[in-house]
């Protein structure tokens, strides 16, 4: 039971990290494109 909870939390953490990385990529890509478009 304890292991399952820890496993679940780890999985959630991985998913959160993936989402964080994705939004960071989105911000960097959109930022770079905006700078190049407007410069």
């Amino acid at each position, binding site marked *: 039971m304890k292991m399952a909870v820890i496993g679940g939390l780890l999985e959630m953490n991985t998913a959160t990290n993936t989402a964080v*990385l*994705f939004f960071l990529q*989105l911000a*960097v890509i*959109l930022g*770079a*494109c905006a700078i*190049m*478009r*407007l410069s």
Partner: protein
Amino acid sequence: MIRIGQAPVIGEMIAGVLLGPSLLGAVAPETSQWLFPSASKPTLYAIASLGLTLYMFIVGMEFRTELFAKRIFAALSISLAGIVAPFLLGIFLAIWLQKEGGFFSASLSTPVASIFIGAALSITAFPMLARIIVENGLSGSLSGTIALAAGSIDDVVAWMLLAVVLGAVSGNPMVIVLVFVGAILYVAVCLLLIKPLIRFLRARVKKEAEFFSLMLLLLALGACFTDLVGLYSVFGAFFLGLVVPRDGLAEQFTAKIGPLTSAILLPFFFTYSGLNTCIGLLNSPWLWVVCLVVVALAIMGKLFACYGAARLSGIPHADSLTIASLMNARGLMELILLNIGLQAGIITPTLFTIMVLMAVATTLMATPLFRLARRLSASNC
């Protein structure tokens, strides 16, 4: 980019290259690896594909078939010149590059390499061409009509050639057969079933949001089928866009999905493409000479050939230059084709980088040349 008279797409193409190993990866390799780890590439590719599919759907919807029919002969002769000349130059280039080595997969035959290079040189930045024409109010003009029609023919032929290359690379003639049979089947289904179905759904489904989701479902199915037969989802989306009724529906869809696609999804494609582009691979003066030769041949094959064909068709000098300057830009379409070639293992990352630089150079030329042609046209008037 807008300030210096360039199309925004150029800024995005360069931004993609800068985010890849050419700048970010070279200056801060650890940050680059952390920000764009190899494991995230499939996600980037999936989002990039969605962006391309929606974008090509919009391009298909913006295509004006009535203009195409009006100037068919002039358009055919210009598009033929825009295919034959790059093709002949492509044969020369492929033979030369294969002799030098390091540009193609070792097992690739010369004819297949020639067809790929021919297709890559003959492609036109059709969506960009359409945008420049519309933004400058040339949609109904002689040069605008012919450039749109010729550009679309060239792109269709280039994609068919790519299908042949992919079939040949797979080593299975059935793959080529599958591509062509799949293409014919898809076109027939779109014209005979999907087109009436869209009209039927439009009459029956009252809620706009529901109708919109059904259209996106059709798009997803079309993209899936064309990918499955090896024709690529960009074709499926483009052709589905062509059969959308032009009675306000196409404009409605474009207004809905256009801004989101251009602002969020397409930059992912530019980045994905940029991650595969490494200018550092051109690490010798010789490779830069090869790059210059590729750019020069690309310009000769398209700009000069299309200008010559337009003049021979009796089109005035300024209009011929307008058409040729628009046909010469490779833009996003070239990047799509190159990424497919790289993924299929046809070209090496070095040739990929050289061809990306060629696409950037020819796209950079488009607006200044176009403006020069318009000034010439105005002074003649």
